[in-house]
């Protein structure tokens, strides 16, 4: 991945001996690589038109005070021109350190971090545990695997509704807790329990992906490594620590990164579990959606500004993550 080899021709790109001028280098580079550029052109065009242009337009919106009252809109037959104006970086300033910035941004920010860390840790921990169990010679492990993949197979928007039935005040979970003599929390009303429930449901939804990926990783570890370790008298824990974990490294670094990105952006679980009813359990993504589409008037500019901040957080995080992996001499697979 790091060595610049054109794998189709096997040539090293640094092999050209004399360094020609920049114009002819550009031309030679194009002559040499034009087919690569033609091949990526469709995606490049799609990304340009469908991603970069809206992104640029969205960034422009964050510098204005656009909302649904002053944007261009059509009411019946009347076309109303947009009247929003340019206000510079005020939106960002207001979000980050304006009045009540803590209630609006920072409290959600902290909860989003907690949410992401807790969910990914649970996904990874439980997923790894189950993958280890399924990697044994065990009767019925195919059946176990099929059942355990179920939460992944059913669309999230379906299962979240199932969970809502279960978490309702007099639903099965509270009935069960009551029968055991345990307290019955208001899962869908009390902030702490809302957050607890959100993490629980998302963990349930996310474990199968981790389990399956890590199982794939486990199966690719060479069995002779375990035999060698066993010959050397390594205990089960030592084999896990020194054979299994290093063997899983590349899979782990990838799935953890994907897990963090997906969880950070997880919209469906929280949105469908609570709708508008839980202002304090919203993570930044659902909160930004509320601002832009869940209230009247719709605050397009602030919502877009939240979006930009979220993207910035993820890009900064991913850059550091990649650098950290590279420093530890692990390449991120992607």
């Amino acid at each position, binding site marked *: 991945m790091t060595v610049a080899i054109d794998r*189709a021709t096997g040539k090293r790109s640094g092999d050209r001996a004399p360094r020609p001028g920049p114009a002819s280098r550009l031309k030679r580079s194009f002559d040499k690589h034009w087919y690569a550029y033609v091949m*990526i052109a469709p995606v490049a065009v799609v990304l340009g038109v469908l991603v970069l242009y809206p992104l640029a337009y969205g960034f422009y919106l964050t510098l204005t005070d656009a909302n649904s009252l002053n944007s261009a809109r059509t009411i019946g037959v009347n076309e109303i021109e947009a009247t929003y104006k340019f206000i510079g970086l005020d939106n960002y300033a207001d979000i980050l350190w304006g009045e009540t910035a803590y209630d609006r941004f920072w409290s959600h920010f902290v909860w989003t971090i907690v949410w992401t860390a807790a969910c990914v840790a649970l996904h990874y921990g439980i997923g790894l545990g189950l993958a280890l*169990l399924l990697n044994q010679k065990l009767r019925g492990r195919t059946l176990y695997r099929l059942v355990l993949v179920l939460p992944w197979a059913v669309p999230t928007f379906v299962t979240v509704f199932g969970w809502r039935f279960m978490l309702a005040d007099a639903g099965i979970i509270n009935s069960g807790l009551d029968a055991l003599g345990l307290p019955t929390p208001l899962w869908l009303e009390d902030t702490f329990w809302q957050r607890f429930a959100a993490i629980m449901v998302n963990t349930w939804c996310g474990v199968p992906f981790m389990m399956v990926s890590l199982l794939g990783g486990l199966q690719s570890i060479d069995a002779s490594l375990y035999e060698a370790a066993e010959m050397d008298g390594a205990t089960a824990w030592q084999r896990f620590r020194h054979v299994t974990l290093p063997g899983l490294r590349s899979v782990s670094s990838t*799935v953890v990164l994907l897990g963090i990105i997906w969880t950070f952006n997880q919209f469906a679980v929280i949105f469908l579990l609570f709708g508008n009813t839980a202002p304090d359990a919203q993570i930044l993504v659902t909160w930004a959606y509320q601002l832009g589409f869940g209230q009247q008037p719709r605050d397009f500019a602030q919502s877009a500004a939240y979006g930009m901040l979220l993207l910035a957080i993820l890009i900064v995080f991913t850059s550091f993550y990649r650098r950290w992996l590279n420093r530890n001499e692990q390449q991120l697979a992607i």
Partner: protein
Amino acid sequence: MSTTTVTTTAPADRPADDPRPPRGVRRRGESSPLARLTSHGVLITASLIALFPVAWLVFLSLGPDKDDYLRPGGIWGKMTLDNYTFVLQNTNFFDWLKSSLIVSLGTTVIGVLVAATTGYAVSRMRFPGYKKFMWVLLVTQMFPVAVLMVPMYQILSDLRLVDSYLGLVLVYCTTAVPYCAWLMKGYFDTIPFEIDEAGRVDGLTPFGTFARLILPLAKPGLAVAAFYSFITAFGEVAFATTFMLDDEKYTLAVGLQSFVSEHDAQRNLMAATAVLIAIPVSAFFYLVQKNLVTGLTAGGTKG
């Protein structure tokens, strides 16, 4: 992981040819009965947890009354399929299904067609800008819905594409296309480069190599990318909720919500609808899940 250290040596008085393993000694790959029992116990518990919410949904869908989910015990006596007949006959279920299929299949077809050559190019060729391009593909995976939603909404409403299938397909392509390219790169990486070289030696152009040799070999990879973009589009909630305004153009994800957004939540019908959606999708999932796993792990973890 299953192996347990063999500690005891066979007692000296045992005849050497006794085929039974000595007591307390296990062969490699076997674990102690206690460990096996624990494993089964944990796996059974986990399976029950995985199964229960879905099974519960199925059970509730058989109760005729909208508040039966609060008194599940009563359902045993009056199980009925009325909810299903009602949903199929008196709601827009089939309209929603049609919308979901149009949007998801549209996204899948465009995603796979557009992304295939790119996956090949980034798998085989090292061109200037390669790393930046890969980085862009990764970054588009990180887009929170909020980033594109506002500008997309504005642009689509300028183009009068809000509440149209095409609009939603275009929106989904923003995530499906880079993701498909990504998955397919992983799959192309697993196809030996010697095949390309052989093709080149025989005088094929890079496009010829791709179209005649690699593409036929990559069918499972294409299938995984197609399936993955299909289920992603099928299950998407945020954009579908915002961009589809007409009751008949709702996708299933939005239609299902419409049962509760009213004051009088018809939970029994909702449960039945949920089951009607979940069964075919899960069945489909299980048909392809083996390939899906290989495709995802190959795509996600091999450089």
